[in-house]
Structure formats: structure tokens, C-alpha cells
């Protein structure tokens, strides 16, 4: 089984549209949405939830009023300013470290598992999907991402699927690290804007930090040709494959409004671009991984 994660650094470059298009063409994949705090893949894939699970990512402290003597130790020790002057825990500021709990001389602070969100196993018209929803203003999105990926891997093994297609979050922080560590390859969606290029360079460094092979797709490539030329040059210099170039086309928005992937929505040129992208991803990214992993096995023997 191989795992391909779509990321971008900058948000809004087209990760979800690209991932959904690939999902509609893949024949034996499990689709995974790891953008747990602003998930959008369900808008295009309309998953029917089969099983629903609670996610407990951490604990939260609560002060029991009648045992508290207002001694102030917890307030002094808390580094997150999570204890108010009238000795209540600010649930939003609390990081669940437990320092107040262990150090309260009156044992007046309870420490309970806290539900951070939910995750789901669903059916879509293209097969199985694992996704999640972080609770409003909750923490531990990285842990939830890890859980979603682990569960998707188990599901794929059970049904002998050969590919995990993962929609990643924007940025380079904990949810992104949780989405890509141990994956076989990442596909970075970039657009020819200086912002997206700046963020792409940071996310390339992140993928390299974790030794994950990178390929690039340029979305809206004809928006600003000078910058597209620069992206191509950068990829050549860094020995990264550009596996697809998608023109600037509002059909992507129209497909979204119809709840369809672009491959289902149009028969036009844009569809051809995505079909070619998927063929190239299979040929140049996924098939090469087989060679790589069998080489690796030989080395191990």
C-alpha cells in the first residue's frame, strides 16, 4: 500500500480540488481528509457516514470550588495563564499539562479526558473515506490527523486497497507534520503567486526534513507566466518533477458549486489536464515508489 499526501504550505491553492479529481479516477484507493479543522473534501465527495467515533485528544483541568482555598499556587505555576483570578480554568487557554493538578495542596483540581472532535468512516461514490471534524476552538489537531491516517491504513489493509490519497492541511506545523510523517510521497499544489512560491519552498524543506519524495503540480499556471517559469526552473534546480499544469479556469468553482469533482463536471480541456495529471502521478510517482521499496527490501535482506 502506498500513501500520497497533497499539501501546499499556502492555503487555497487547490489541494482539495486536485485530491478529489484524483480520487474520482483512482480504482482501488481509500480517501482521507486530514485537514481536520477546515475540512472541505466532503463538499465534493458527499460521504455517507457509516461509523462515527468520538476523539479524546487530551485532558482538561477543572477546579472543584468547595475544596479550593484560593492559595494561588496553581495560578503561579500555570504558564498558559489559564487560571482566572477567581480560580476557574479558562478552557480555551488550558493546554492540559496537569501542572496545576499535581501541585494543588488540596487536591481540588480534577483532570478529565476531554472530547476534542469526531472522526468517521464513510462511503463515497468512489469508495471508502476516512475523515474527521475537530471541535470548535479545540486543540490536538495533530493527534486527530494521526488517528485518521492510522485508521485509514487499517481500513485499506482490511479491504486490500493499494493506495491512500490524503488531503493535507495548509501550513508547516503540527497537523502537516502529522499528515506527512511516514508517507510515501507528497504532491505540492502551487500557484504562480509570490506568496504560494514562498510557502512552497518552506513545505519542500519540511518534506525533505522528513525524507519524503516531493512532486509539484502548478495550478492556474497561466495566471502569471513569468512566475510559472520561475517555478519550473526551481523544480529543475531542485530535481523535483512537475507532474501537471492546470490552467486558470472558473470551472473549478462551478464544479464545487455542483458538488462534483472537475473530472465529473466537464468534458473539456480542464478534464484532460486532470486525466494527464493522474496518469503522470501514477507513472512517475506511484510506480516509481514500487521500485524504490523493492530496492529497499533487497538492501534489507
Amino acid at each position, binding site marked *: 500500500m502506498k500513501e500520497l499526501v497533497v499539501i501546499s504550505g499556502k492555503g487555497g491553492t487547490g489541494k482539495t480540488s486536485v485530491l478529489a479529481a484524483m480520487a474520482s479516477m483512482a480504482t482501488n484507493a481509500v480517501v482521507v481528509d486530514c485537514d481536520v479543522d*477546515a475540512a*472541505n473534501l466532503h*463538499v465534493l465527495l458527499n460521504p455517507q457516514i457509516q461509523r462515527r467515533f468520538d476523539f479524546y485528544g487530551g485532558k482538561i483541568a477543572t477546579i472543584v470550588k468547595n475544596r479550593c482555598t484560593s492559595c494561588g499556587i496553581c495560578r503561579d505555576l500555570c*504558564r498558559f495563564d489559564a487560571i482566572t483570578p477567581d480560580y476557574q480554568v479558562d478552557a480555551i487557554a488550558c493546554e492540559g499539562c496537569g501542572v496545576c493538578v499535581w501541585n494543588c495542596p488540596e487536591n481540588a483540581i480534577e483532570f478529565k479526558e476531554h472530547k476534542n472532535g469526531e472522526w468517521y468512516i464513510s462511503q463515497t461514490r468512489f469508495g471508502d473515506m476516512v475523515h474527521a471534524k475537530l471541535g470548535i476552538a479545540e486543540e490536538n489537531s495533530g493527534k486527530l490527523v494521526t488517528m485518521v491516517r492510522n485508521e485509514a491504513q487499517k481500513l485499506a489493509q482490511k479491504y486490500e486497497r493499494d493506495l491512500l490519497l490524503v488531503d493535507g492541511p495548509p*501550513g508547516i506545523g503540527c497537523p502537516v507534520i502529522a499528515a506527512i510523517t511516514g508517507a510515501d510521497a507528497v504532491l505540492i499544489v502551487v500557484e504562480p503567486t509570490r506568496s504560494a512560491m514562498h510557502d512552497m519552498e518552506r513545505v519542500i524543506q519540511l518534506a525533505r*526534513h522528513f525524507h519524503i519524495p516531493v512532486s509539484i503540480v502548478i495550478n492556474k499556471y497561466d495566471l502569471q507566466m513569468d512566475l510559472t517559469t520561475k517555478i519550473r526552473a526551481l523544480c529543475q534546480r531542485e530535481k523535483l518533477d512537475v507532474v501537471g499544469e492546470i490552467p486558470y479556469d472558473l470551472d473549478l*468553482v462551478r464544479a464545487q458549486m455542483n458538488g462534483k469533482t472537475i473530472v465529473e463536471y466537464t468534458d473539456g480541456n480542464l478534464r484532460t489536464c486532470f486525466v494527464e495529471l493522474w496518469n503522470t502521478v501514477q507513472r512517475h510517482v506511484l510506480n516509481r515508489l514500487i521500485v524504490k521499496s523493492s530496492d529497499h527490501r533487497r538492501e534489507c535482506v
Partner: protein
Amino acid sequence: MTITIASGKGGTGKTTIATNLAVALATEKVQFLDCDVEAPNSHIFLRPAISKTEPVQILVPQVDDQKCTLCGRCAEVCEYHAIGLFGKRVLVFPDLCHACGGCSIACPENAITEVPHDVGLLQTGQSNGIHFFAGQLNIGEAKATPVINAVKRHIRSNWLNIIDAPPGTSCPVVETVRHSDYVLLVTEPTPFGLHDLELAVAVMRKVEVPCGVVLNRADIGDEGVENFCHEKNIDILLRIPHRRDIAEAYATGRLLIEMLPDYRAIFRQLYSDIEGQL
């Protein structure tokens, strides 16, 4: 006053709104704070002269092997598995550490001291009279919040502070918007934009910060966002039409008000409207 520009969905135009608003108001005392520390982009548009770059650090435990008796108490109290007993050594994983200080308090031998660990950079500069601060998370570091807080420490209450927030709805966003006087949520009229706006509004209600909406590329999609804002009684303070030349100018790092000078007055009006709401 502190106005934060946030969004839910990425790529809707947060940085465009934040930078243009700051430049349009640059005749006042304005500070710009880039809290999108994972993917900071405001410098591309504001082109600040950076006068200072300093590391952002958190305190992580360091174990004195001479004093350590391998009792394992530190590992017991750490909720993040950032310190653990492995055979005859205690190992620290700074990436997982939240710098709560719990292990050093718990150690009965006083074998743990806390030492600084770099997690990011803070840049300070000037851009046409605007005081500029930007955070940058180091590659491979997981937690953005210490860097966000390092940027936010520069908020000055008697100045106008404009904060560029990260996308999403989880801890980095919550940390950025807390204690703001007003949040502008930038979105686009698409199903993705609507879905993430709903989440972002729920976050703002939870942290109890008043918010309004800027609708970018206002004519590309459907009525969903307009209807939602109407139902929830949220004002749409500005609508920016979709234009290819605006997108191209953005691509090359040009400000909207450089290309279309009429927008200077529009952004000043946006600020007056926010003041009127408070």
C-alpha cells in the same frame, strides 16, 4: 485597537485585506503583526526594512544525569510524552514539549533544569511608517503558538494593531484572535468558503470576539455566504469583485491600492465601519 484578519479557509485574501488596510491607514499610528507564522506572506506586499531578527525560544527540560536516579516521575507527569525513561537514560523530545515546566517541578532530585530551545524567528521592521512584526516557525517545529505569542507581545494598546491570522479554526487561530477587539473574516462565495466561514464564526462566538465579513471574488459563486450572514446577523462590510487583473497584481506582490487607488478610500471606509460597530 486590535483588528485581526482571519478566514477559516486558506487563500481567500486575508493578507490582501490586512496589508491594504494597514497601508490605507498608514497616516495614523499603525502596527502590522503577521501571525501566520507557518506561511507568512505579508512581507511580500509591505516590503519592510527589517531592523532586527531574533530567535523565539521555549524552555525545554535538560536532565543532569549525575543527579538523575531514573525514578521516572518526570515521564509520569508529562502529558505530552516529551520526556521518557529509556533503559538507563531519560530522553527529552523538544518537538513534543509544551514548556509547561511540570517535569522540573516534579523531579524529586532537582535534576531537571530548563534551557532555551529555538522554535522560530521574530522580525521587526518598518514599512512606510508602519511598525512591522512577523513571526516565522522553524521548519520541522510543530507548535506555532509560542511564535504567535512572541509577535503578539508587541501589540500596543494605544495604536491600531492589524493582525494577519493563519487559516483554519484550531489552536494557532484561537491564539491569534483572542483579545482582539474585532475580527474580519475574509471568505469567498463558494461552498468551501461558506463551510469554513461557518466554522470560523463559531470560533469567534466561542472566544467572544465581534466579527464581520469581507467577501472576496464576490461574484464568482452562489448566494450561500450572503444568506448565511443574513441569517446570523453578520455584516458584510466589503465586497471585492473577481477580476483577473487583481489576481495578477496579487501574484506579483503588488498592493490592491497601488493598482486601483480608489481602494484607498474604500479601505479607510472599512475601518470607519468597524469603528462604528464597536
